[in-house]
């Protein structure tokens, strides 16, 4: 359901602003770049670890795996690394899909 709504809103906003979606809702295997990270919505150690793992504006990202149907963590490629993060954190990372 969530993806349907996202797709709709995406289409709606696409005309006005470049489409931004959270890493959490980024389709599986869709290449994207990190557009912005809502650092303030993360705890300080969380934000630091996220930076240390290479999350930064402009870096290529892609969702590789989602654990257990439902609410498990997701595994994503960031730069040349594979990193597991929880969905709540992924929700704070906004990405713009790369065409093609």
């Amino acid at each position: 359901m969530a993806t349907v709504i996202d797709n709709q809103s995406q289409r709606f906003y696409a005309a006005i602003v470049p489409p931004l979606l959270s890493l959490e809702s980024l389709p599986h295997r869709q290449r994207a770049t990190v557009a912005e990270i809502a650092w303030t919505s993360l705890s300080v150690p969380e934000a630091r670890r996220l930076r240390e793992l290479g999350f930064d504006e402009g870096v290529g990202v892609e969702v590789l795996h989602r654990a257990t149907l439902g609410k498990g963590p997701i595994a994503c490629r960031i730069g040349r690394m594979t990193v597991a993060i929880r969905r709540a954190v992924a929700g704070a990372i906004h990405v713009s899909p790369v065409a093609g």
Partner: protein
Amino acid sequence: MNAAPLVALVGNPNAGKSALFNALTGARQKVGNYPGVTVERHSGRLALPDGRPVELVDLPGAYSLEPSSPDERVTRDVVTGTQDGERLPDALVVVVDAANLDNHLRFTLQLIALGLPVVVALNMFDLAERDGLILDPERLARDLGVPVVPTVAVRRRGLDDLKARLGDVLAHGGVKQLRPSDGSVQDDIATLQRRARAIAVAATVSETPTRRWSHMLDAVALHPIAGPILLFALLFVMFQAVFAWSEAPIGWIEAGIAWLSTAVGGALPDGFIRSLFVDGLIAGVGAVVVFLPQILILFTFILVLEASGYMVRAAFLMDRVMAQVGLSGRAFIPLLSSFACAVPGIMATRTIDDEKDRLTTILIAPLMTCSARLPVYTLVIGALIPNTKVLPLIGLQGLVMFGLYVLGIVGAFVAALVLRRTVTKGASSGFMMEMPKYQWPRLGDVLIGLWSRALIFLKRAGTTIAMTVMLLWVLASYPVAPAEQKQSEYSIAGRIASGIEVVVKPIGFNHDIALALLPAMAAREAAVGAIATVYAIDNPDQVAGETKLADRLRGRWSLPTALAFLMWFVFAPQCISTIAVTRRETNGWKWPAFMVGYLFVLAYVAAGATYWAAIGLGL
């Protein structure tokens, strides 16, 4: 006194640092501890091409100089010369994963900025090439301003070159002066990261995208359905192997002990000394050493799962479940290790960054059925649970054993749930982990790991357990009972046990058990040694042996008593080493005292409930 220069091996986790350390130092390693913290200090010697010796120390993997766990704090303190018990290194070997430069170079830049002489080991160079990545090490060296040596630790490639460069920087470097403030090192991570990426891009000659086989494996290992099935299949095989593969080696050890006890018994004149050695030492320690094969098999699995990179996948799969009780997937790794032994398990919690999360994991780790309980379970189940088939292929004995494992896990989860809502209350911690590439574990690395575990176990059997059983033997042998009385009741130990019996009688424990509980406090498996010693003293004509011991138990214990005893062992915190490591890891007596308290209450209640339920059911 120590003239050899000190070189620290430092780098990101998963850069292949430990493999490089093993390749450089071989078996010439020492494992110690940094004072005040339980972070292990791995050091070893290596000879430079010109013959000069160097002391190499392997520092815990870190992402930056801003520590978020005790492990990473040691790394920072050593490289900044502020770690107690360690001098400032004369040079650093920074290990980076050639296939992951953009990330690993950030930490490298931080380390170079410290001002110590640095050599960069561009490790796992072959894997990067296989991934279609062509790098220019010379360009990288120019941009970083330090020597860069491509290495493949697991194939021992580039090691001579690395040692030669290390010799150069040690000869010329000598910058013992750290840059003015360590604070300046804490440059904004994002800025450093961008610089690192720029350097990585410049050093990359070409990059052909290939579908990495790690991703293909992950498609199965992390699959929402296939993944958990694979994980449970692996765990099942692991526990199955612990029992199935150990049968033969256990037989050999038992035969060896029987031979030893006959030989020693024959060589010594009848009397105090012979009884002390044969009935006390050999019977007691032998009953424990028998379990070495099972412990080693369990550790083999854990070491292989860890070295292959699968363990992090298991943590990923388990995160959802662990989150339910307020923990994160990260806690899965220490808890799985605790099935072998809670001591390394508790030490492995150091990788958990969240303090509350870590404390909870430490407090529940002793509930995982460690290998020291196996001797006790095996003995009691073998003696008192009928060997009948419940279903085809499923025996009652195996089912009871499985039940005890499950009970420990359920107990741990319930305890975590309660603890996270009471004493370790706090915001739920996150789960963020790098997933390393899969790799074949190297036999040598696994063997080095196993060797150190075996040594720890045998040292324990030779010291703690040997001392306890010998002390118990003396206490159980004197004063000598008159003909009509049992030695195990008349002796000093017997009288102490009679005192304990008053407390444990309501939960169905008999005099034998009361007697075994004291030495079991030192180490759980000592309970078996203690029972063996006591029965050996009571019946001096028989040779000590596992089968005989089981026969004797059958005559003296009722089924409800045996079940209560098993239940006690599921929960009771009987292990001096675990309590000691908890004290070290939590910096004080508060948490170990709490742990011992809640586990004893749990054990007493569970054993009592089981006993009376069994009596009520007419078992």
